[in-house]
C-alpha cells in the first residue's frame, strides 16, 4: 500500500484513500513515515462508514509540502497501540469515541470525560506530596485539572486532566443545518483563535464545493490571521510580565493589545475577529480608509512595542525569571509531536505557513526558531513574530487589490459540496497548526468533521516543561504556552 499524497486543502474522493488490509501494515507505514523528523502526525481518527470503522492516518511531510493519507478498516475492536508518544493522544480519542481498545497503550486515560475515581499518577514515597489545582483556577481562565507530585518545592511530575470544556463541537458541526450556523460554531471552537479556526473551516467547505476564493478574500484572510497573531502575542507578553510581577510590562503590553483588537472591531464589528472570515464570502470589505487607519495604528504600536520589548529583554530581574525556566528539549518536543510556536521555541521548525503554504504564504517566508526551549525562548518568539507580522501586514496593504469588487455570494447560491469526498486543511494559528478534516456522504452533506487545535499536541509540552521547576514557576510556564482548553476539549 502506497499512501495518497495530498496538498493542503486538496480534496480527494473518499474511496481513493488507500486501505491497508492488515493493521500491522497500516501501523508500520505510519511508523516508517514518523521516523523522519520532517514528518508529523497531523490527524489520526476513526470514521464509522457503512463498511465498518475506518482508521484514517494523516501525516504531514514538511519537506515535500504534502500530507500522506491512508486508512485501515477495523475487523476487530482491539488493535495494538503504536506506542508513539505523538500518536497516543489520538488513540485515546479513538478509544473514547468508538470503544476501540488499544492494547499495550502506555497511558489509556480518558481524554474528554472527567471520572471522579480516575487514578492519577502518584508517588508512594512519604517525602513526596501532591498538589491538586482546578478545574477552577485562580484567574479568569478556562477550567482544567492539574495534579502535581512534588518534592518540597520542586515539581517531579505534572499530570493534566482535561475535558471539563467538552461541548460536543464535532457532532454539532454535522447536526447544524446551515453554513451560517456552522460558521458561528467554528468561531466558537476557541474564541481566542476565531480567525484561525474560521479560515480552516472556510478552506474545507470551499474546497469541497470547488469554490475558488477571490483575490480580495485571500488577502483579507491573510491579514486577519496576522492581526490575530499580533494581538494575542502582545496579550500573552502582558500576561507573562504579569506572572513575574513586572507591572510595567504587564500594563504596557496590555494596553498595546487594545488598538489592535479595536481595529478588528472597526473592520468587522468584533474585537476577536468573529464574523470576519466566512466561507464563500468576505462579509466586511477592507477599504482604503481602513488600510490607512491600520498603517497609522501599526506605526504607533510598533514604536511602543519595540521600546517595551527592549526593556523586557534587558531587565535582569525579568530575565532571571524567564531564562532556564520551563525548558523543553528538542528531542522531547519532537517525541511529543509539538507544533507551532512551542515547537519552534525548542528548535523544531514547524510552521504550516512555510511548509504547507496556503492563502498568500509562501515557502520562502522567514520563521523564527529558538533553541533553548525555555520561557524566555517562547517570549522572544512572540516578540520577533509580532515584528514579522507587522512587516507582512504592510506588504499586504501595498499590493492590496482594492480595485477588484468583492465576490459576495448570496446564501442561496452557495455551491453544493461534492459527495463522498475527503479534505484536510492546515492553518497556522498564533498557537500553531490548526487541522480541520471533513468527509462528505453520498448526498454531499458532512458525514464527519474533525477539529484539531494545536493545543491537542502541546498540552504534553507543558507537562514536560514544569519538571524539576519550582511549583511557584508553574503559572509562568503555563502562560508561556497559553494553550486552549476549549480547543482541546471541543
Amino acid at each position, binding site marked *: 500500500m502506497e499512501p495518497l499524497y495530498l496538498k493542503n486543502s486538496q480534496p480527494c474522493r473518499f474511496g481513493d484513500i488507500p486501505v491497508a488490509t492488515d493493521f500491522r501494515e497500516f501501523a508500520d507505514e505510519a511508523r516508517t513515515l514518523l521516523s523522519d523528523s520532517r514528518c508529523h502526525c497531523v490527524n489520526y481518527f476513526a470514521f464509522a462508514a457503512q463498511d465498518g470503522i475506518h482508521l484514517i492516518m494523516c501525516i504531514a511531510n514538511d519537506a515535500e509540502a504534502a500530507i500522506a493519507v491512508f486508512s485501515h478498516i477495523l475487523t476487530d475492536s482491539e488493535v495494538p497501540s503504536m506506542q508513539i508518544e505523538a500518536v497516543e493522544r489520538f488513540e485515546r480519542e479513538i478509544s473514547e469515541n468508538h470503544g476501540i481498545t488499544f492494547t499495550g497503550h502506555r497511558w489509556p486515560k480518558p481524554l474528554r470525560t472527567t471520572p471522579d475515581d480516575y487514578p492519577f499518577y502518584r508517588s508512594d514515597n512519604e517525602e513526596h506530596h501532591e498538589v491538586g489545582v482546578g478545574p477552577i483556577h485562580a484567574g479568569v481562565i478556562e477550567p482544567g485539572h492539574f495534579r502535581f507530585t512534588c518534592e518540597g518545592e520542586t515539581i517531579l511530575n505534572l499530570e493534566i486532566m482535561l475535558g471539563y470544556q467538552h461541548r460536543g463541537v464535532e457532532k454539532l458541526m454535522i447536526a447544524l443545518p446551515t453554513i451560517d450556523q456552522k460558521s458561528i460554531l467554528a468561531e*466558537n471552537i476557541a474564541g481566542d483563535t476565531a480567525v484561525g479556526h474560521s479560515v480552516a473551516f472556510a478552506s474545507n467547505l470551499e474546497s469541497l464545493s470547488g469554490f475558488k476564493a477571490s483575490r480580495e478574500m485571500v488577502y483579507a484572510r491573510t491579514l486577519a490571521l496576522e492581526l490575530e497573531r499580533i494581538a494575542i502575542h502582545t496579550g500573552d507578553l502582558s500576561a507573562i510580565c504579569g506572572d513575574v510581577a513586572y507591572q510595567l510590562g504587564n500594563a504596557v503590553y496590555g494596553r498595546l493589545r487594545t488598538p489592535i483588537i479595536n481595529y478588528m472591531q472597526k473592520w468587522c464589528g468584533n474585537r476577536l475577529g468573529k464574523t470576519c472570515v466566512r466561507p464563500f464570502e468576505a462579509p466586511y470589505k477592507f477599504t482604503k480608509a481602513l488600510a490607512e487607519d491600520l498603517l497609522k495604528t501599526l506605526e504607533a504600536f510598533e514604536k511602543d512595542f519595540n521600546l517595551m520589548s527592549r526593556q523586557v529583554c534587558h531587565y535582569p530581574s525579568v530575565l532571571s525569571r524567564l531564562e532556564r525556566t520551563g525548558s523543553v528539549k528538542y528531542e522531547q518536543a519532537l517525541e511529543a509531536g509539538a507544533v507551532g510556536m512551542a515547537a519552534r521555541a525548542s528548535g523544531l521548525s514547524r510552521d504550516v505557513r512555510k511548509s504547507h503554504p496556503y492563502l498568500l504564504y509562501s515557502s520562502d517566508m522567514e520563521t523564527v526558531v529558538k533553541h533553548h526551549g525555555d520561557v524566555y525562548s517562547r517570549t522572544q518568539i512572540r516578540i520577533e513574530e509580532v515584528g514579522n507580522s507587522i512587516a507582512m501586514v504592510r506588504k499586504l496593504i501595498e499590493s492590496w487589490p482594492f480595485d477588484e469588487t468583492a465576490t459576495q455570494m448570496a446564501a442561496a447560491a452557495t455551491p453544493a459540496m461534492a459527495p463522498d469526498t475527503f479534505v484536510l486543511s492546515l492553518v497556522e494559528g498564533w498557537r500553531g497548526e490548526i487541522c480541520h478534516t471533513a468527509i462528505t456522504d453520498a448526498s454531499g452533506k458532512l458525514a464527519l468533521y474533525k477539529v484539531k487545535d494545536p493545543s491537542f499536541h502541546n498540552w504534553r509540552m507543558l507537562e514536560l516543561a514544569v519538571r524539576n521547576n519550582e511549583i511557584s514557576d508553574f503559572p509562568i510556564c503555563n502562560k508561556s504556552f497559553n494553550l486552549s482548553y476549549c480547543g482541546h476539549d471541543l
Partner: protein
Amino acid sequence: MKHASLISVFRRQGKQYIPDPRTAEVPGIFRGRPVITTASVDAVAVVACCPMRAISAEGGISIDLGKCAFCGKCARMFPEKISFTKDYHIATTVRENLIVRESVDAPIEFGPVPECAGIFKGSLKLRQVSAGGDNSCEWELGATGNVNFDIGRYGIEFVASPRHADGIVITGPITANMSRALQICYDAVPAPKLVVLCGTDAISGGIFNPEVSGLDGSNACLDRSFLDTHKVDLYIPGNPAHPLAIVNGLLKLAER
C-alpha cells in the same frame, strides 16, 4: 542609559484609561443594541435569516439578545428593517428585557437590582467560572481590569477564592463536566451572593443550545440545571460581551 529609556517608556504611555466608561464612544462598527423599524418586510425571511433563531415574528419582529450572536447577518440582509446601534448599555437584571421589539428605539431597561446589591456599593468582588466558555468572554472579562477599562477604580475586582467573592460570573453554555464544580464554587461563596451570566453562551446556551440546531433532543454535553435552581441577577449579552457592556452592567448592579 537604562534609567533614561525606562523613563521614556513611562512618558510615552500618556493617559490610557477611559475617563468615563459610562459615556465612552466605541470605535468602528460595534454591534450593540439593535433597532427594528416598522418597514414592511417578508417576516418569514427575516426570521429564517437568523442562524441563532433569535428573531421572532410574533407581534411584530423582535430580537432576543440572549440568543443573538451579534453576527449582523439580519442587518446585512434587511438593512431597512434592522440596524445595530453602538449602544453598549445592554446588560439587564430581567431576562425578558433582552428582547428588543419592533419600533422601540429606547435603552434596554436595567430592571430592579436585587435587595442585597446595595451592600456591594463600595466593593464588589467576583469569582469567574468558565463552564464551556470559548475564552472570548473570559478574555473580555479580563480586559475590564486592564489599564484602559480599569474596573478596579470602582472597587470591582475578580478574585481567586470564592470565599472572598460576593458572587459568581458564569461564561460558557455550562458543560456537564463543569456543572458540579460550578455548584461547589457557588456554595463556597458567602451569602448574600450574586449570579451573573456573561455572554450569549451562558444566557441561552448560544450555538450549543439544542433549539438552535432545529433538531429534537438535547445536547448531552451540557447540563444547565444550575440555572433552574438559582436566580440570575444580571445578564450581559454579547459574543463575547464587550468590556463596556460588562463594566456598565456591573456598575449598575452595584448601584454606582
